[in-house]
């Protein structure tokens, strides 16, 4: 039987009323879990696991996959509406998405996120069905030097979000890197910046930091200025995407998918880095550079597609090799074992009904998510009509709940408040916030991969470019770094060309909250 027949058979498994119900339940739960910062799909699945002992394995896995995809959808909602990323992979969405929401285009931002996720999820799932073994072979061949190169490329994204003042931008990156250092050194086991507090030795949770800096900082900022600015609600605008929005969204969706899928399949890829890359690619390629930083739809469409494609990518090594590449996949692996299914290279042959039923249910889950989320977009957008004091009270409530839910530790609330104060101070002194988050996410990974690369090559520096992919990526990095210089030289030799204008709108109003 060829792949297509197997897939059709999978649909017949997935479309039984029972399994369809579990897919529905999964995507609904997933969306709820994604909306709440702190509770991620991994935790949701782990907590549901004991309740599924008596279920059909296929039904349970279909529900889990629904939760996973749903979480990826739901995370963007709070990013866009409340500037509070629900998951670390939707941090980037908040930049342009929340600006769009503030300009009355929340519905469009949510719609482009939903449709982009659908497109990416569907293409990603199709790639998973068609090329699983090939993709996995490539992804598994990568070692620390390739990862290091890719992370360095990701770090270049920082330059796209530095803001008007480079000095402040880099100060913010530095803060992020410092926060990323907190915890146990992964190589020697020595404690860094923990000040004798054992709760700090695992490092700070990215979600807690992001929620504190984004949401709590923003709430403090708004609270401090409410008396001075008049009480206004945010306009809601028209509910659907216009022709322009479609035109500007479809390419970022496809590019985001192309970036996200391979990252998901890589054992140390993750869903965050492709969203950074997608954002900077869209910023470079857009025909409306003046809108970036003020609500450009491309900046939502690309990263949202990237994080969903990476979710599909993650399932590839899980099904083809039994290799979990992130926490959610790890819990799903535990679920497979619980049902007495040995994941591994033989899974596709031994359990065709389960595997293809699961893949088919991913298509179905994606469609369900689109059907649920698209009509919801204008409804969600109405949230913003709530007067600000109440809206931000709600945001603070959810931020607190989310931060507490990550580890059920009261100590995380202290961290939330301390970092919230930092977020407020950063807004007060005009430091952009995103460089901090990117530094926080990438810093520890770059360190980890760099040291691994050196450890594996016994300290030999050639270990940094021992893999072909690493060399290729460094060439791209060099090209990107050299490009402005080349462009400058080009202009100098052709004085007739007009200089690139910096639109006046990019000069920011210091009293506006920043990202």
């Amino acid at each position, binding site marked *: 039987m060829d792949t297509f027949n197997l897939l059709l058979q999978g649909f017949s498994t997935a479309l039984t009323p029972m399994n369809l119900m579990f897919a529905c339940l999964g995507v609904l739960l997933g969306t709820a879990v994604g909306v*709440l910062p702190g509770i991620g799909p991994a935790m949701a699945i782990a907590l549901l*696991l004991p309740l599924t002992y008596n279920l059909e394995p296929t039904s349970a896995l279909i529900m889990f996959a629904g939760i996973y995809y749903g979480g990826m959808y739901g995370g963007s909602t709070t990013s866009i509406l409340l500037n509070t990323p629900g998951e670390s992979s939707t941090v980037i969405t908040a930049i342009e998405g929340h600006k769009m929401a503030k300009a009355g285009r929340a519905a469009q931002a949510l719609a482009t996120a939903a449709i982009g996720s659908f497109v990416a999820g569907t293409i990603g799932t199709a790639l998973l069905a068609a090329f699983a073994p090939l993709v996995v072979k490539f992804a598994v061949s990568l070692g620390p030097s390739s990862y290091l190169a890719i992370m360095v490329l990701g770090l270049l994204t920082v330059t796209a979000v530095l803001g008007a003042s480079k000095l402040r931008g880099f100060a913010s990156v530095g803060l992020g890197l410092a926060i990323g250092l907190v915890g146990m050194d992964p*190589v020697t086991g020595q404690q860094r910046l923990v000040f004798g507090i054992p709760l700090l030795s695992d490092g700070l949770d990215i979600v807690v930091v992001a929620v504190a800096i984004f949401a709590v900082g923003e709430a403090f900022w708004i609270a401090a200025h409410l008396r001075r600015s008049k009480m206004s609600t945010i306009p809601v605008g028209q509910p659907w995407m216009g022709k322009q929005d479609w035109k500007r969204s479809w390419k970022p969706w496809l590019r985001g998918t192309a970036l996200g899928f391979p990252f998901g399949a890589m054992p140390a890829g993750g869903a965050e880095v492709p969203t950074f890359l997608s954002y900077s690619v869209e910023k470079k390629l857009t025909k409306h550079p003046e809108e970036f930083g003020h609500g450009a739809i491309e900046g939502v469409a690309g990263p949202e597609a990237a994080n969903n494609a990476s979710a599909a990518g993650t399932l590839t090594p899980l099904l083809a090799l039994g290799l979990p590449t992130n926490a959610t996949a790890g819990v799903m692996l535990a679920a497979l074992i619980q049902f007495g299914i040995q994941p591994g290279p033989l899974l596709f042959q031994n359990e065709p009904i389960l595997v293809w039923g699961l893949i088919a249910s991913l298509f179905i889950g994606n469609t369900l998510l689109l059907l649920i989320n698209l009509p919801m977009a204008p409804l969600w957008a109405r949230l913003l009509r709530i007067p600000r004091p109440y809206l931000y009270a709600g945001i603070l409530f959810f931020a607190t709940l989310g931060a507490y839910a990550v580890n059920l530790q009261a100590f995380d609330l202290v961290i939330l408040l301390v970092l919230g104060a930092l977020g407020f101070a950063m807004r007060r002194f005009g430091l952009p916030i995103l460089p901090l988050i990117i530094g926080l996410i990438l810093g520890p990974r770059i360190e980890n991969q760099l040291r691994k690369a050196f450890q594996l090559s016994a300290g030999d520096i050639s270990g940094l470019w021992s893999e072909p992919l690493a060399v290729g990526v460094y060439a791209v990095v060099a090209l990107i770094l050299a490009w402005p210089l080349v462009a400058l030289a080009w202009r100098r030799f052709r004085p007739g060309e007009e200089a690139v204008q910096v639109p006046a709108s990019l000069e920011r109003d210091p009293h506006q909250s920043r990202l």
Partner: protein
Amino acid sequence: MRPMNALRAIAVAAGLAFAATGCGVTGGADAGKTSSAPAGPLTGLRIMVPNTPGGGYDTTARTAAKVMGDTKTATNVEVFNLAGAGGTVGLARLVNERGNKDLAMLMGLGVVGASYTNKSEAKLTATTPLARLIQEPGAIMVGKDSPYKTIDDLVKVWKEDPSKVSVGGGSSPGGPDHLLPMQLAKAVGIDPKKVNFVSFDGGGDLLPAILGNKVGFAASGAGEYLQQIKSGEVRVLATSGESRLEGVNAPTLKESKIDLVFTNWRGIVAPPGVSDADRDRIVDALTKMHASDEWKAALKTRGWSDAFITGNEFKTFLTDQDKRVADVLKELGLA
């Protein structure tokens, strides 16, 4: 009325959230089961998991809780997670709950190591040992293209220049996969400080490094790699248990003339200051659970080896483990 609708949406979302978390808290408990066993089942036990949901300790605790409920040796066993600092946050809480007869903590070798690397004031030796449940021997593994065919090949090259042979493990320093190669190094006469240990983020991260021959060798539990071992892509040079591992064609370290027995184990301890009667009450329930067919079936599905010991035997074992771990980590400057 629109803001009202929006508020209602928030309320629904919050409700869903509570429902989702609510499932978790009571997830391990088999609510509503009443028992008519003559001895009277254990009631009100709460098992703390010092790690995140879905991890090894968590699965063990939830499986044990379920089997205890199903076999009616205990009712309403509640499993909850208190993660942090490799388990030492949970350990500190347990030690603080002196005399609490309804609390127990699932733990294992990783927590012993973490209590030293994190310089925790609470030590496992302060707790009341209840029972060791399961164990898994470690395995010394290489990829199929590795030059090392036997453990002797490896040790010879490793001794020549320890820095040239990288050792991959799926845990952070202080964890089982770190302690195994360090104790192995000591056993074959290599200074543990010279071991080039590369910490990977669990089996999913380590496996590609073994397959791609990126690490000199890997030290980890064999359970996660059984498929690859069967298909021949991963070669096991030796296992570290008392006897050979079923289904794995490799000698033990002892057979290979290396004097080391190392197993990663999991067990249950209670807070300090629990009366003997209360301790025996829980130990009895665990003993009954261990004797049940359900537990045996669970061991088989999970691929765990039975290692049930209780009371003083477990206490001696725990003290010995604590000392061995402390010795190694002190030599490394980590304790």
